[in-house]
């Protein structure tokens, strides 16, 4: 699916991390932890081609990201659902249209209104479907972002601090949705520094926890 081999990323004259390797195999569930500023978001961006590694190789579905055209990256992103901490919506469009945006840009007409309604119901936003994103609460925005991330039935879901701005109950609800998606065979990578969330998840799904610290990626151990 997504493979990083000996990847380094530098900016502003400093190296954020180096010699970093990671393979997101089909159906796997990974957590990515680490202190703020360690490079979790940068690593996520490398995984969906928004950034290009300064050294090493990132392969998206078998293709070297550095060799891919902008259109090639765009097509790869249709197979990767991304949930940002700040969600990134088009604020002038209602929630339902924001969720359907990946289908719109891909020109997909095979998914109908009922499919969209089912997805909106699955994330519990039926009542909010016609509202504008700024009118939603933090948890509602995160669930809308998740719905948008999965509407194309992507192979991989990348969630960057998806529970950063929401309460514990809502975090649990979002986690259950991600676990449910993983059970459907989706590959999931969640960047978070919420250890309680990771502990809760480990009771429900088999997952690997990776810690990005001191410019290296390590497999976290029994301290979790």
């Amino acid at each position: 699916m997504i493979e990083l081999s000996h990847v380094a990323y530098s900016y502003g004259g400093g190296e954020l991390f180096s010699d970093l390797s990671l393979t997101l195999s089909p159906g796997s569930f990974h957590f990515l932890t680490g202190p703020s500023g360690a490079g979790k978001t940068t690593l996520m961006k490398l995984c969906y081609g928004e950034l290009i590694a300064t050294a090493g190789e990132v392969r998206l579905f078998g293709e070297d990201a550095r060799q891919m055209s902008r259109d090639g990256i765009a097509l790869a992103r249709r197979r990767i659902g991304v949930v940002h901490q700040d969600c990134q919506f088009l604020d002038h469009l209602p929630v339902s249209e924001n969720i359907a945006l990946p289908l719109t840009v891909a020109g997909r007409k095979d998914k109908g209104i009922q499919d969209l309604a089912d997805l909106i119901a699955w994330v519990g936003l039926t009542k909010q479907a016609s509202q504008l994103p700024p009118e939603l609460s933090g948890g509602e925005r995160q669930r809308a972002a998740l719905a948008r991330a999965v509407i194309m039935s992507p192979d991989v879901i990348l969630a960057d601090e998806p529970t950063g701005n929401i309460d514990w109950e809502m975090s649990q609800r979002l986690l259950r949705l991600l676990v449910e998606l993983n059970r459907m065979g989706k590959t999931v990578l969640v960047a978070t520094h919420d250890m309680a969330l990771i502990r809760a998840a480990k009771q429900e799904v088999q997952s690997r926890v990776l810690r990005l610290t001191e410019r290296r990626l390590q497999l976290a151990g029994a301290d979790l």
Partner: protein
Amino acid sequence: MRVPAFARRGWLLLIGDPKAERAVPPSGFTAWLTSFTAAAMAFLAVFAMAFSFAAGRLADRWSDELARTSTLRLSAPAGQMEAQTATALEVLTTTPGVAEARLLSEAEQQALLEPWFGPGLPVASLPLPRLIEIIEEEDGFDAAGLRARLQAEVPGAVLDDHTRWREPLVAAAARLRSLGWLALLLIGASTGAMITLAAQAALAANAQVIRVMRLVGAQDAYIARAFVRRFTQRTLSGALAGMAAGMAALLLIPRTEVAGGFLTGLGFTGAGWLWPLAIPPLAALVAFAATRTAATRRLRDLS
């Protein structure tokens, strides 16, 4: 019947893709600016085109009228004037290529002098030369040969075939026509420049929209199309309004037959009224090219 790809793309551009276009938020100022610019430029373009056509007609008319007439001026002592006039007319009527030779009457000479000396000039009492108007046949006559014959038979005759002052007049009219077309070109270029600026402003203001669309897998061509379509449609509608206003304004100018003169002849004749209809599609084409270039550059810079 198979519709060509370019025609299909053009049609899709006009009818638009409402879902795709909705991704770009409506921006009131740039929308208004684009429509207004297109309308104003189309209005001016109608006038530049009409000016060019009128100058062309003027050049043709001057060229035609002056090219087919010449004047013979006769100066002779009072006692010989009648004889020389008769001889000159005889020479002219027997010259190949001369369709008609006519002695101008006193009234006609008076009318010619009236703008300078006022009405009631006693032409008969003045030592004025006699004037003979020569109308040429289609192929014209041999001016050098005629001059040689006249010199031999009517020494006081001077043949003026208008070449000396016809050429600068026709050249001036042709230059006016060129200026009209140059004005049209400048209007087109200014339209392109202003729409480029408006498109760049819209693209800069919508950087977040572009980021989100890319995040969900939109290709650059798709994002560019959303902007290009919107600007092309706004330009087309603005130019249609400007063209209609320009044509209406031309119709309100008094006709040549009523008032006479170059300015009152500003306008189109017959099928010429179809020419301004080309302005809105041309303006849309300019907008399409300008926005597409701006969008492609901006998207490349954002990557």
